[in-house]
């Protein structure tokens, strides 16, 4: 392939991927027919799982390479359009594919912070980074920091930051792979993680960036098809219009009306009161557990005795005896129960108005909610423009011109999913509010009955007021169910559910590939080749790169199998960390010639330091870990949540670079030449920084 011209290569790619897309659609149709002929759901799950992983393996193996620049940057010949698709798959993780619509369902307007943040960040990538990094033309992000600021200190900080951000993120992806595999095939979570690991390694091991790129394009096609089909169907079903992004305005109006009805509905109020009473009793019980426990038990015993003494009907006595038997065995058990019940207070509130921004009980609460919304938007955007696994994709285009266009394609392909997710959330809510709420417990909609049985963590419905009818406040719903159950809600055959699982798997695998490669490359290229053994021959470099990839993958899978908690928080944290450490140094490196080595060092460390400090002080998990007892309110700045720590880290990083740069001597002429070099796509008498 190395000999064909770029335009022939483009033509070939288009032909291959058109055939591939057609083949994939054919595969879905064949499975659909097989389902009608009696293929079981479990086998449909297996077919999707193994067919897609086999496909990735074939692409991965045919893309094997022994060339360094193919391994690290796909030979720099990925056309803008395809790099856009690959970036889309690289970017959209299990959290975007499965979690996003659920988050929007549960938090309404406030969830849109992620939709805006994870798309608007590409404007910063386009304006500040992509074309300049492409002109610089090396292999990794620490490469740029090392060349621009000189010396190994900046490069090392870059390596450490890249590894920390990417590792946290990759664990979440492998976790997602394990979940999807186990849910749709019935394999155990641990086995699922192992299958996922195999799926990741077959893509990247032999061909590095080259193989990852071409599998990511294939994965993007699967994930976007899988996301769109059920939503389009659901939209046609509920609104008569198959374009969900336009049609859901109508559905949103109906949801808003229904919210008002449900808020005023007496039966709903009854359920909310029951929940509130339980939560209040729990709070009271926790104040003096021993006393409350003894009194509670005595009351339950007395009730049984009283009923028996007054010769009450047998069913009343039976109910009282059941209540007594269900009473916690000891004070510890009672405390656990009460701690759980305390959380019911959240469910005792009327439904949250979906379209209302920053709801809150008073003006101050609303203002804090608004600041936090904008804080998340800010951190997700800057983080997007600082995550190494995304930025390094712009090294792979043939030219600066293509790098610019490629950001356009990237955001376009990402946009397709992100502007559909809010529509899916509203359409699903429409369905739940109109058809699930008000149905009889004896005849629940099939999808609800099915999911409540399979996975109570995703859906559980309890008849709290014993009227036999489902009230909204009786439904507890886990966000992930929105995407997973949409095919069933829309009344589509199981083959589409299998397709959605394959899409989620593609999203998780593609992101994990990009991240693992980033980590392994930071170690093999920046640490081994640039710092330890600059004379290493090509063969040794590739051997080290592949060996490290394997090690990193196994470590990541091992950490995942321990099921660390707080994964979602850690992913959000990765954005704040990346934003605080990389963004100021990268942007000033291109736009301010005066930025010096010590400026960059202090900026990266200060940004990172402030960010980490704020998270440790305000995030419950770290507070317990480091035994911090100061009340959260005292250490919070402007009521900002820990996930948005980058709001403080980024400005501090910029300020530190500027101040320290001005205090240290201006960079040498060579560095200034380098800056000019990256600013102009072509320059007469230019230096050449492309790595080989």
């Amino acid at each position, binding site marked *: 392939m190395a000999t064909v011209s770029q335009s022939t290569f483009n033509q070939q790619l288009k032909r291959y991927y058109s055939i591939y897309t057609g083949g994939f659609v054919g595969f879905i149709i064949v499975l659909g027919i097989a389902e009608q002929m009696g293929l079981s759901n479990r086998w449909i799950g297996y077919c999707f799982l193994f067919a897609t992983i086999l496909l990735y393996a074939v692409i991965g193996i045919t893309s094997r390479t022994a060339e360094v620049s193919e391994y690290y940057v796909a030979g720099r010949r990925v056309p803008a359009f395809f790099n856009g698709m690959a970036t889309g798959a690289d970017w959209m993780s299990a959290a975007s594919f499965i979690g996003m619509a659920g988050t929007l369902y549960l938090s309404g307007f406030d969830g849109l912070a992620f939709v*805006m943040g994870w798309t608007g960040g590409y404007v910063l990538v386009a304006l500040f980074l992509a074309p300049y990094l492409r002109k610089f033309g090396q292999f990794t992000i620490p490469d740029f920091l090392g060349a621009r600021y000189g010396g190994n200190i900046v490069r090392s900080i870059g390596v450490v930051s890249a590894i920390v951000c990417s590792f946290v993120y990759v664990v979440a992806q492998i976790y997602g792979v394990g979940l999807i595999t186990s849910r749709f095939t019935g394999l155990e979570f641990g086995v699922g993680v192992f299958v996922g690991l195999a799926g990741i390694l077959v893509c990247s091991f032999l061909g590095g960036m080259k193989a990852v790129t071409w599998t990511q394009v294939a994965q993007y096609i699967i994930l976007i098809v899988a996301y769109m089909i059920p939503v389009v169907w659901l939209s046609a079903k509920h609104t008569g219009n198959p374009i969900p992004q336009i049609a859901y305005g109508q559905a949103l109006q109906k949801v808003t009306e229904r919210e008002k009805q449900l808020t005023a509905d007496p039966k709903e109020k009854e359920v909310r009161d029951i929940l509130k009473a339980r939560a209040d009793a729990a709070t009271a019980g926790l104040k003096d557990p021993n006393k409350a426990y003894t009194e509670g038990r005595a009351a339950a015993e007395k009730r049984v005795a009283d009923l028996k003494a007054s010769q009450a009907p047998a069913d009343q006595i039976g109910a009282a005896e059941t209540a007594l038997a269900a009473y916690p065995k000891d004070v510890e058990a009672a405390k656990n129960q009460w701690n759980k019940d305390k959380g019911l207070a959240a469910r005792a509130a009327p439904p949250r108005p979906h379209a209302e921004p920053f709801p809150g009980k008073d003006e101050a609460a609303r203002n804090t909610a608004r600041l936090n919304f904008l804080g998340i938007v800010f951190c997700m955007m800057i983080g997007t423009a600082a995550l190494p696994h995304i930025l390094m994709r712009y090294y792979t285009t043939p030219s600066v011109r293509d790098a610019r266009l490629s950001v356009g394609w990237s955001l376009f392909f990402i946009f397709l999913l992100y*502007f559909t997710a809010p529509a899916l959330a509203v359409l699903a809510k429409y369905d739940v509010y109109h058809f699930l709420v008000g149905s009889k417990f004896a005849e629940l909609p099939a999808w609800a009955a099915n999911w409540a049985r399979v996975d109570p963590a995703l859906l559980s419905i309890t008849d709290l007021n014993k009227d036999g009818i489902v009230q909204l406040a009786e439904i507890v719903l886990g966000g992930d169910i929105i995407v997973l159950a949409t095919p069933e809600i829309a009344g589509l055959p199981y083959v589409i559910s299998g397709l959605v699982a394959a899409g989620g798997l593609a999203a998780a695998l593609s992101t994990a590939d990009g991240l693992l490669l980033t980590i392994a490359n930071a170690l093999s290229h920046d640490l081994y080749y640039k710092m330890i053994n600059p004379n290493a021959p090509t063969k040794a470099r590739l051997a080290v790169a592949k060996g490290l990839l394997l090690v990193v993958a196994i470590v990541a899978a091992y950490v995942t199998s321990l099921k660390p908690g707080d994964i979602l928080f850690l992913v959000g944290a990765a954005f704040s960390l990346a934003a605080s450490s990389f963004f100021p140094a990268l942007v000033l490196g291109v736009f301010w010639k005066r930025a010096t080595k010590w400026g960059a060092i202090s900026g990266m460390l200060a940004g990172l330091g402030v960010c980490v400090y704020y998270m440790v002080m305000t995030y419950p998990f770290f507070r317990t870990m480091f035994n911090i007892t100061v009340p959260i309110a005292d250490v919070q700045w402007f009521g900002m949540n820990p996930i948005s720590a980058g709001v403080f880290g980024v400005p501090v990083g910029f300020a530190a670079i500027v101040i320290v740069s001005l205090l240290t001597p201006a960079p040498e002429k060579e560095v200034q030449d380098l800056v000019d070099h990256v600013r102009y796509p*072509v320059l007469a008498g230019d230096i050449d920084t492309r790595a080989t």
Partner: protein
Amino acid sequence: MQLTEKHREYWNKNLTITAILLAIWFVVTFVEGWYARELNQFTFLGFPFGFYMSAQGSLIVYVVLIWFYALYMNKMDRVYDVHEGEDD
């Protein structure tokens, strides 16, 4: 490596367009976000306008901004003769 007047002009144009696009980005992101509550009083295509902007409107603007920048700068590359060959 000698920068000519023309080169400086190219870079200044780049800075200007970057600043303009960044300002638009700022408005549709943070100004819009700040006033989302107030904007929701208007209706657009059946949506409360603040909600519409955060869910779709701003996203569309982002896509347009990036494409505009790419096409504009690719043209500037040619005008100022700093463009790459067809088949780098």
